[in-house]
């Protein structure tokens, strides 16, 4: 039986591209444990110098908002909450 059939768990991979930036979700890998997950993430996602730091998190540990309730959560748009309705004096220029 292959390892896939036994089902190595899935890990989400977050890569920080450079100092001062945030870790950004890059994708996922299958691995038996945390250490091999980190190594797999290094090989799959940072081979071409894309990162200086990697986080891996078991995919099952991520708590996500329910896509079926997207309207309840995010559909109630209130564009006036963005500060885009102010008149900007010409002297300020581009902000």
């Amino acid at each position, binding site marked *: 039986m*292959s*390892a*896939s059939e036994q089902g*190595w768990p899935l890990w989400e991979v977050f890569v920080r591209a450079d100092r001062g930036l945030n870790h950004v979700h890059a994708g996922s*890998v*299958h*691995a*038996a*444990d945390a*250490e*091999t997950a980190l*190594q*797999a993430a*290094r*090989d*799959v996602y940072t*081979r071409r110098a894309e990162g200086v730091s990697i986080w891996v998190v078991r995919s099952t540990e991520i708590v996500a908002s329910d896509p079926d309730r997207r309207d309840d959560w995010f559909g109630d748009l209130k564009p006036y909450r963005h500060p885009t309705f102010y008149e900007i004096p010409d002297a300020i220029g581009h902000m």
Partner: protein
Amino acid sequence: MMTTTTTPLIRFLLRTADDNLVLAQRLGALLARMPELEEDIAVANVCLDHLGQARSLYAHAAILEGLGRSEDDLAMLRDERQFLNATLVEQPDVDFAHTIVRQFFVDAYQVPFYDVLCGASDPVLAGIAEKAVKEARYHLRRSATWVVRLGDGTEESHDRTQAAVDLLWRYTGDLLALDEIEETLVADGVLPSLDGVRGVFDATVASVFAEATLTLPTDPYQRLGGRAGVHTEQFGHLLPEMQRLYRSHPGARW
């Protein structure tokens, strides 16, 4: 038949390159055959690191010998008895455990070996070693992790890994034996002493095997000869497959 190379430094560069090229050839044959996509990519990365090390070393050897041979000529036009790689790297991939144990022995050796080479008086060799030692450290992290996972895993993974150790240990002597080539290079001040490599290798193997619940064979037999071009049968199958295209189409370009 090409002439054999003469100076100790060229011979040393060639055999170090040969170790890397032959291992890369073995690893390259595993692509698309690894048990997981992630491992497929990992083995491709390690393969390309070894291939890159081989290329740099061949290119430098080719310049030093000054016979107009290219790195490709050195890799593809020498015959079996002219290859000076340790017999360990030509051993076949019986199963994943053999692949990993072979890699682990190479990595445990290459980390202290390249560490010493960083102090070579030849600046090109020192530069190659500085890049290679970083790659070797990562390779060792990966292979040691797998040795522990397999050795201390299921009964089957332990037994297969122990079987790989029992088979492959006898081929490590080629890597670790110091001969007149190294003695000359050290005496001439080209290389710092390599005496410490064996101790670091032994310590790495001992600590990883303790965690992996693996043991070294009690039989002290070592099959030497790779450094003198005397290879195992497996190499006779690997070499023509590797060289066939280049030899069939001399001078072909992409």
